[in-house]
């Protein structure tokens, strides 16, 4: 399929951080059109587009808007999730840095749909340069008189993967430790400050102006039937041309890997592809003839996730890869739910034992068992995310795990491509419980 630029359209020719640059590519033409529509009609249009959430879950954006109670007597809020932290993802960063005015127009249109006058964009704390660009773009758009009656507040995170989880993000935005909330009530009923709240990913909201500009019916013809539109695919790892590629949904994965991104470097063989960020189950080389859309990747038992592919070649030890991923999720577990807080530590201990060659076959069973006791047993999906990589590597590369046990050590013998990699949890941990003064 040809490249199709919508989210990133115009970034080469114009400075889309400025109102003038964005107007040069038709920017802010959808806004008056949307504001002339009644909120119910705008929501109907968004539903007709079948735009699915680009943050990972794929929930239809228009349907989310329809769930907002606009008659509760409380304000309604739109919160944009720019806490991009999933290993492998770097698409929101590009939109916020290269096309922030498109995101802002998307915010203003989406706010009109749910009759909100206050939008919050939560950007991860590490994105300092991106924050400066986005904040300047917001200030310029406000000064240009585009906001009235809406206000947009850019809120910086402070380093916590869990704050990308929508209810943890709300707690963080309220000035608390970023820990997930029990659901129900769901955010459309009781979200930010207890008020009805719509939460969407950066790329979801940045898709909205084009839907209004071309009309939902036309927009829905782009991409895959069940998942219309384009997505920015972040591809990294062992690949010739890593980077972001905006493509229609439904583009074959093989085409992205081999035609767009140039295939596997150094004449190596493909070993696996993590299709949606590090939290999702890995796919083996015989599974890459799959269209890149939510349902097709879902049918393989994995997830579209954040449209972020990590490509792994044959030099990588899968136990080491599992251990590195497991340490990340252990580090990022917020500590609220016992299965996740404790289980992520058990996983790391068992994987370290396997990698060191001290494990028995019973430890492989125990690792499987620990995972099954985490899955689905916590308030949010972080625990599941810690288990999917470990268990999918075990199931799809069983011989490698087995070889660590049989040989009493790593079969790569110090030659793995990620040999010796340190994890932050090796040097420090953030506290799973509150540190309060004595």
């Amino acid at each position, binding site marked *: 399929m040809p490249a199709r630029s919508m989210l990133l359209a115009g970034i080469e020719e114009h400075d889309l951080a400025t109102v003038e640059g964005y107007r040069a590519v038709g920017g802010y033409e959808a806004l008056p059109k949307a504001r002339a529509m009644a909120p119910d009609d705008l929501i109907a249009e968004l539903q007709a587009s079948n735009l699915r959430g680009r943050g990972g879950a794929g929930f239809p954006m228009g349907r989310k808007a329809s769930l907002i109670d606009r008659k509760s007597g409380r304000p309604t809020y739109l919160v944009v999730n720019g806490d991009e932290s999933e*290993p492998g993802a770097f698409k929101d960063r590009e939109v916020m840095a290269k096309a922030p005015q498109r995101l802002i127009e998307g915010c203003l249109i989406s706010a009109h749909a749910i009759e909100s006058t206050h939008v919050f964009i939560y950007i991860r704390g590490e994105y300092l340069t991106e924050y400066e660009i986005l904040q300047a773009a917001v200030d310029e758009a406000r000064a240009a008189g585009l906001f009235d009656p809406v206000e947009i507040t850019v809120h910086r995170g402070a380093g916590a993967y869990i704050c990308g989880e929508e209810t943890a993000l709300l707690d963080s935005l309220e000035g608390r*430790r970023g820990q997930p909330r029990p659901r129900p009530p769901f955010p459309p009923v009781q979200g930010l400050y207890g008020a009805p709240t719509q939460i969407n990913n950066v790329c979801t909201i940045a898709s909205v102006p084009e839907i209004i500009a071309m009309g939902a019916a036309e927009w829905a013809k782009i991409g895959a039937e069940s998942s219309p539109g384009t997505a920015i695919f972040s591809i*990294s790892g062992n690949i010739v041309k890593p980077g972001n590629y905006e493509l229609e949904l439904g583009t074959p994965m093989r085409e992205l890997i081999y035609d767009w991104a140039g295939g596997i470097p150094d004449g190596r063989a493909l070993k696996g592809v993590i299709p949606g960020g590090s939290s999702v189950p890995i796919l083996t080389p015989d599974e890459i003839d799959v269209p890149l859309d939510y349902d097709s990747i879902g049918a393989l038992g994995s997830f579209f996730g954040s449209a972020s592919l990590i490509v792994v070649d044959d030099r990588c030890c899968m136990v080491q890869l599992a251990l590195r991923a497991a340490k990340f999720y252990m580090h990022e577990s917020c500590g609220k739910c016992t299965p996740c807080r404790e289980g992520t530590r058990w996983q790391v201990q068992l994987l370290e034992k396997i990698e060191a060659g001290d494990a028995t076959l019973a430890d492989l069973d125990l690792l499987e068992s620990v995972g099954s006791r985490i899955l689905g047993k916590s308030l949010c999906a972080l625990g599941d995310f810690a288990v999917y990589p470990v268990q999918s590597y075990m199931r799809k590369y069983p011989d490698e795990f087995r070889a660590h046990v049989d040989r009493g050590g790593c079969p790569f013998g110090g030659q793995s491509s990620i040999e010796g990699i*340190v994890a932050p949890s090796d040097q420090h941990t953030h506290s799973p419980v509150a540190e309060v003064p004595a």
Partner: protein
Amino acid sequence: MRDFAAQVQDIAAQYPDSRSAVLPALRLAQARHDGWLPPEAFVEVAEALELTPAYCQAVASFYDMYHLAPTGKHFIEVCTNLSCALARAQDVVDAFESELGVTVGETTEDGEITFRAVECLNACGYAPVVAIDHRYRLHTSPEDVAAIVEELRAGS
């Protein structure tokens, strides 16, 4: 002191509930206290927002970007998550360790540079990624390390 409280209250005015200003206020306080949060910083934030110091410390201890102990003047942070690991970020870590004479998590003896390994910085397509005083430096190789350290020391 009055300045700090006034600044925090300006930030708080952007939110329907002033508690939302805790994260920005802690960031501001950290900048005023040489890059970390000593006990008096929590008192200042708490007084500005009518919270307790214990509450502010409990929030700060949750997030990786607040420091509860003194740090160096500068930060060098190497991402070692999956994509950077596959791009041999470990070689970059090793090069910094030998150039700085510290191991990950430590600060140089002169108190200038704190060196850390960090979780995903989400610039995976440009691995290995190093954040130098929170600005990303893309495609960093072990050969770049000596010049990075020299430049940082010269600029401070």
